[in-house]
């Protein structure tokens, strides 16, 4: 296994991607209609989806 694969992933990777995606989503619908609106919907829908996924996969047992 490579050294890179063994390196621990930074816990800030997910927040960084979420921030970038949120900015894209916020700006997209402002730039234009049609496909630009759809990009915003996709981004924010995915964010809500991330929470739903976490809730479905929650650890219920001790």
């Amino acid at each position, binding site marked *: 296994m490579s050294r890179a694969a063994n390196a621990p992933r930074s816990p800030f990777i997910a927040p960084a991607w979420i921030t970038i995606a949120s900015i894209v989503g916020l700006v997209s*619908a402002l730039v234009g209609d049609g496909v630009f609106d759809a990009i915003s919907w996709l981004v924010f829908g995915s964010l809500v989806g991330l929470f739903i996924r976490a809730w479905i996969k929650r650890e219920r047992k001790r």
Partner: protein
Amino acid sequence: MQRSTLKAWFLVHKWTSLVCTVFLLLLCVTGLPLVFWEEIGHLTGADPDVAPAAVGAQPQNLDDLVNQALSQYPGDVPLFFGWDDHSPSVYVNTGARPDTPPPEMNTAILHQYTGEVLPAAQFNEGVMYFIYRLHTDVFVGLPGMLFLGAMALLFAVAIVSGVVLYGPFMRKLSFGTLRTGRSRRLAWLDLHNVLGIVTLGWAFVVGITGAINTLAKPLEQAWQTEQLGEFAKRYEGRPRPATFASLDAAVATARAAEPGMTPAFVSFPGTGYSGDHHYGVFMHGNTPLTERLYRPVLIDVETGEVTARPQLPGYMTTLLLSQPLHFGDYGGIVLKVLWALLDLLTIAVLVSGLYLWFKRGSTEARVTEIERSGLTAEAGVAR
């Protein structure tokens, strides 16, 4: 991260959150119906359904529309005239005097093509206006707005400090970890973290743009003093004209001066938006971005000629662009629904934060918990 640094960030997160949470809850709860203000207005009948213009029909003369509106409110003077971009209707704000503040204004909605006065509720009355005032200034005007702006800034600091604490807490955990089978407190802590990170970018931008919006009045006043004051000086010592040139002709002149744009609204002399001697015809573009960016065309109310077409200063552009980013009204009903869902998730972040504060132990224990990703002895304690 050193324990002392972690402790400092923990205290920043704790106190900035504590101070702003109750007010943020108020803003999030009142903001929820405001996202759907337009739809609620149509459903309740507060906003009239406007019949489409007949084929080949021509818009009514604007001066006639203003006179029609004034006939509804005898003794009033015209303040603002505006177009609805989504229906063939126009609005006319009137008031007892030229500097009538918005809460005291009267409004008439008219069909642009028939001149008919449409049965519409006043914008400054009713449940939605009550919620709006609660959301923007808690009924105390500028001090209330600035206070809520300060709370929004504290919220932004709480978000940043929360992200800093998220790093060491999640060091040994996968993204999206929700441990609901151990202690109740750990479940709420994980929920707080997951929701906080999912809403991170959205909540930060909506918070910051909300803070910018609270500066609307001071920024508008600065713009009026600086830029409009410059043009007003040319008319120093001259009384405000008693009779005005045709509004219809003034708007036509402004259209000719800015051919790529359409008029959004017109301010009458004395309203503070165009001095005492001008119509301010505020032109805008037709894309989601350019429809927010106004270009004022100042028309002399006596001669009907263009005096100036000043560019809005950078701070006014920032203010105007921050409005859609706060309201979420620029991507159709789907974006509004998603905006509302993210608002609900933010409410859950605030509530979970309050729960964690009520169930707090010592600061040292909480810092240790963050260092150990919540894998403390308490994690295994029964609910």
